[in-house]
């Protein structure tokens, strides 16, 4: 099977499993929605400028639901020792990694696709005029988070306390992408021109490339005992 075929096979398997079980999507949506509602009550956005606090609120919701998605994604592989079935298969293990990144991106993007329009309605934000820039920001930063998160989820999956360890390892490593995500989203929502936040976009793109490349090279070692 081709490398891309393996990536799609793994991502498709995760998607099909989720469509059948609906274990993850429901908890991701409820969790993200809860964060949005709690922050809505905490800050009066009729007084506080949404552009200054809103991006942080949105990315807290995306990142925490992303951690849930990552934990769930590797819990499935841990149960019944399914990960061993993958490890003994004649595939490039980095293709499994990229399949998992793709699946995590799909689940995070599904949450974002609901939460962003909802936030626009709740907080009266006209997003349609900035949709292109916003999609670029969401795509780049979601990819970066999924890339680094999948690598650390794989590292921790064979430990006993993987669900505790994952955020402890992941959050420090994800600081650059979280920072870039919040800053670029803030500039986009404020309607500023691309040149103002271009450096943050390059940072996100660079982070994505570095972590994807490093993970593709290191993933085999990450999964070893």
């Amino acid at each position, binding site marked *: *099977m081709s490398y891309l*075929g*393996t990536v799609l*096979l793994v991502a498709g*398997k995760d998607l*099909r*499993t989720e469509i*059948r*079980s609906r274990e993850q999507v429901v908890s991701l949506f409820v969790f993200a929605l809860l964060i949005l509602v709690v922050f809505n009550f905490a800050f009066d956005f009729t007084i506080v400028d949404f552009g200054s606090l809103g991006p942080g609120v949105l990315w807290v919701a995306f990142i925490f639901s992303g951690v849930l998605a990552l934990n769930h994604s590797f819990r*499935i592989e841990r149960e*019944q*020792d*399914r990960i*061993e*079935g*993958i*490890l*003994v*298969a*004649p*595939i*490039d293990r980095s293709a499994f990694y990229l399949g998992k990144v793709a699946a995590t991106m799909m689940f995070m993007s599904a949450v974002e696709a609901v939460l962003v329009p909802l936030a626009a309605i709740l907080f009266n934000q006209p997003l349609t005029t900035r949709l292109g820039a916003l999609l670029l920001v969401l795509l780049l930063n979601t990819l970066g988070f999924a890339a680094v998160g999948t690598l650390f989820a794989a590292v921790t999956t064979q430990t006993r306390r993987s669900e505790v360890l994952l955020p402890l390892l992941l959050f420090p490593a994800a600081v650059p992408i979280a920072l870039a995500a919040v800053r670029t989203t803030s500039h986009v929502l404020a309607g500023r021109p691309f040149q103002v936040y271009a450096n943050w976009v390059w940072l996100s793109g660079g982070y994505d490339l570095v972590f994807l490349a490093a993970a593709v090279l290191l993933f085999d070692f990450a999964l*070893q*005992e």
Partner: protein
Amino acid sequence: MTFAASATPGATPLLTARRLQKRFGASPALDDVDLDLAPGERVLLLGPNGAGKSTLLRTAAGLIRPSAGSLLLFGEDPWRGDRIAIRRRLGLLSHQTFLYDHLTAAENLVFYGRLYGLGTTTAGARRSLDEVGLADRADDPVRTFSRGMQQRAAIARALLHAPDLLLLDEPFSGLDAAGRDTLRRLLRDRFAGARAFLMATHDLESALPLASRVIVLDAGRVTIDRPSAGLDAARLEALIGRHAGAAGAGVAP
């Protein structure tokens, strides 16, 4: 330490272990294990709980690295050689099924078949499931299966790519009498030629008739390594009992 005669003299061993050691912390799980597995051999790996049987199988499958010693699969180092080519010739059936609960039995087989580059179709998966008596449940999610049915589906999964060397860890667990018969029949049919298997089991009654050779591990060391001819379950139990605790004494039957 003794070695059984190779089933195919002169052929490259499917598995070669030399002074293989695996330690978890201070305690040795495998202690200087020497082993050759020739094409056509059907080997039972016996011993009490904690003897190192599963560790040996997991090491042979490339899932854990040995602490010392060497291991070759098909004449190649599984950590430095062509790992994908090695894994293509290797199969693993454990008491864990590796199957995804929310996928159907056929979907699971299609998934694993494609991982092995077989281009398995749903029709092909159905044929494989038919061989283990699950044709009528091919489209049901695995989570709706009993433990025994899940194990049958796992057998179909493990045999899907016709491995040259199959590693089995308690494969009879959860199977009823019919399931045990099915597994015995499949192993007898599929491993009649140059293919080989190495099976860790406590179910001597089911497994011994299949075997050409018996290896007993105790505290990570090989205490018995001999052909299975002339052995029945009772005699083998007695032999294992006699050698229990003899690890390290260089006992040969």
